[in-house]
């Protein structure tokens, strides 16, 4: 049985059907005029061959072309793009089946943070009264390393709500190079958890090796087609409306191999996209549709995922503001747009502006987590441990996020109201009202054991002081110490033999 995620029975939608149609129509008009500026020659030629108007743009910079993409071409791509995308896994129970017309949510990690935030606890003594002391967490940023990615994957394997794993740490060890980064990133992740693994590709030249690695792990190319245990994120569009050269090459290569691929666009409302809600939506939609269209031209029927990472600009720095309510609005809207096309959506939530775990972090991440989850996007990424926008990852925060998603999952259980329950309710009330104490307490007992009553917040302390960080840290250590099911010895040997560049220290045998 694949993972269930959460089915949102009544998804939260901000836009009416008419408004969605209008955004769609505006996006199609954008794709015709002003169209897309394409820096990739092959993509320009492919679009031209399919009937797009393509004109060379004379600049002093790299060669580029103006693409005017007709609505007909986009609509054809939307027809051929699979409406169900399967993301495989080493264990069958961790497979994700994403149906574009269904409002379901899977909770996923992300993004690729440069900074890893360690946690230490220090005791502080009150000035003037040394008998009064308090233990507080200290958050220590440092460069992310391969060992951190392994640890993150191991803990992610055991986080109950976490459905899939996007590499969340940028590995910056001295012996990690542009050439060996991809194979080590994929192997470190696949070897330390059995959930689906998704990542961007650093060096497109290593795509064949990464694909070969997945094939060896899953048991051959045919098995990999049925159970694609890896997938890719590609940001081939740079906002506004520019198709970049190198990532477009990578995207086309991935599409040709038939791997599930996210067509991700990340415009910033206010700078690289209009601040107006309808403006950023129309533009990001056009950008994603341009990518999906290219993917379907390259390999009709290849699984592409609608990737939305819209964000609002901060007014003080013009940096990203993932904690702003508008960012959640955009993501909710994109989930609705993707469902309009019956495509699974890779949405963003849980990212915060706060630099360390704390009150701001909790408020910001829960705000978007709840709202975007309610929109039923299918693939909700960036949902664990990210801070300071996407630049910092903290495993302690990921453990806290897991607890919060458990509450959210509980909340989203369907209500049980039917004739049978009504009969039971009447019987219970009539019985209790006859007793001297008039208490319903004993009737809770069957509900406790059947999971119909939520658990207490797992990081609640016993005393008056706030022990959340300390208890979550203990939980984090406990999860990190649990064993994981590594790739078997024989397969590991084969990987080390056939995949160049794997670092020996990742071999657990």
């Amino acid at each position, binding site marked *: 049985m694949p993972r269930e995620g959460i089915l949102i029975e009544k998804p939260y939608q901000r836009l009416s059907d008419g408004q969605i149609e209008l955004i769609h129509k505006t996006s199609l008009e954008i794709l015709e005029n002003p169209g897309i500026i394409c820096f990739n020659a092959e993509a320009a030629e492919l679009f031209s061959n399919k009937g797009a108007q393509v004109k060379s743009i004379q600049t002093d910079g790299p060669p580029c072309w103006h693409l005017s993409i007709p609505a007909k071409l986009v609509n054809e791509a939307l027809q051929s793009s699979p409406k169900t995308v399967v993301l495989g896994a080493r264990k069958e129970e961790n497979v994700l089946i994403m149906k574009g017309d269904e409002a379901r949510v899977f909770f996923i990690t992300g993004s690729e943070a440069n900074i890893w935030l360690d946690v230490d606890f220090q005791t502080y003594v009150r000035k003037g009264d040394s008998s009064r002391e308090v233990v507080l967490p200290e958050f220590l940023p440092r460069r992310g390393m391969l060992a951190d990615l392994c640890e993150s994957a191991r803990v992610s394997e055991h986080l109950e709500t976490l459905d899939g794993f996007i590499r969340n740490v940028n590995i910056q060890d001295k012996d990690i190079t542009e050439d060996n980064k991809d194979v080590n990133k994929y192997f470190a992740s696949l070897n330390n958890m059995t959930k689906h693994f998704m990542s961007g590709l650093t060096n497109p030249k290593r795509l064949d090796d990464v694909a070969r690695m997945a094939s060896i792990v899953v048991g051959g190319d045919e098995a990999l087609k049925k159970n694609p245990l890896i997938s890719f994120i590609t940001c081939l569009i740079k906002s506004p409306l520019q198709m970049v050269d190198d990532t477009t090459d990578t995207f086309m290569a991935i599409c040709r191999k038939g791997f599930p691929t996210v067509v991700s666009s990340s415009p910033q409302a206010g700078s690289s996209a209009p601040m107006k809600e309808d403006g950023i939506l129309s533009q990001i939609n056009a950008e994603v549709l341009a990518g999906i269209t290219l993917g379907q031209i390259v390999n009709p029927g290849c699984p592409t995922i609608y990737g939305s990472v819209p964000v609002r600009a901060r007014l003080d720095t013009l940096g990203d503001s993932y904690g702003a309510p508008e960012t959640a609005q955009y993501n909710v809207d994109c989930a609705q747009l993707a469902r309009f096309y019956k495509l699974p959506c890779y949405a963003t939530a849980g990212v915060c502006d706060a630099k360390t775990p704390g009150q701001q972090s909790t408020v910001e991440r829960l705000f978007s987590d709840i709202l975007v989850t309610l929109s039923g996007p299918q693939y909700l990424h960036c949902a664990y441990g990210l801070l300071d926008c996407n630049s910092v990852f903290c495993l302690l925060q990921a453990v806290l996020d897991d607890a919060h998603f458990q509450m959210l999952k509980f909340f989203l259980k369907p209500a049980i109201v039917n004739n049978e329950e009504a009969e039971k309710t009447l019987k219970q009330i009539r019985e209790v009202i006859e007793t001297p104490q008039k*208490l319903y*307490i004993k009737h809770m*007992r069957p509900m406790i054991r059947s999971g119909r009553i939520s658990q207490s917040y797992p990081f609640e302390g016993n005393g008056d002081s706030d022990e959340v960080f300390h208890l979550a840290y203990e939980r984090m250590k406990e999860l990190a110490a649990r064993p994981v099911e590594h790739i078997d010895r024989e397969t590991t040997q084969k990987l080390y033999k056939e995949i160049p560049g794997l670092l020996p220290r990742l071999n657990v045998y």
Partner: protein
Amino acid sequence: MSEDIIALLKENVIQGRKTAEDEGIEDDLSGTPGVLELTQQALDQKIPTGRIISEGLTAGMEVVGEKFANKEYFIPDMLASAEAVGAAMDILKPYLEASQTQARGKFAIATVKGDIHDIGKNIVAILLKGAGFQVDDLGIDVPTEKIVEFVKEEKPDYLGLSALLTTTMLAMKEVIDALATHGVRDQVKVLIGGAAVSEDYAREIGADAYCVDGFDAIRVLESLRS
């Protein structure tokens, strides 16, 4: 045979099954005898009352207490078991008197004048009964005179006063003062509890103890007894 009934009695206390209609915890045991039916069967078989209590009811409650301490059981489980034991004690009461077996103490409990809140009071009553105390529940909004009268006539060892409101907690002091006026203050230990009151308030009005909840009440009573 008697071993079987005592063992079943203990097990059904652990399961918190008062009657045959109750489900229990691990499996649906409804239809099989609960604590009340088993207590009656034990009496019918002339099993000594002391043995029914010590090896069946109390032994079962000890396991329940351990499970609660280990967070395997929740308060509703504890209450269900306590309620079952309390109901069994009601059946055993006439036999106790005949066999001269003593309850752990006589406890009167009331929500004071002006206050109609009784959830906490009821829970305390169930727990204490389950813990082997003879509990007399005087009810809610109980006039001070009625409480004093009860203490004079029934001579409980302990008096529990409950109040939820800051306005009604003042009646607790009134009760304690009235007990003194009628010369019976020394014959009863007064325990207070409820959302509005505190350890400090208990001290201030001359109560013997403040109890956070029903479990605390059992602990406090144990310490007062010793």
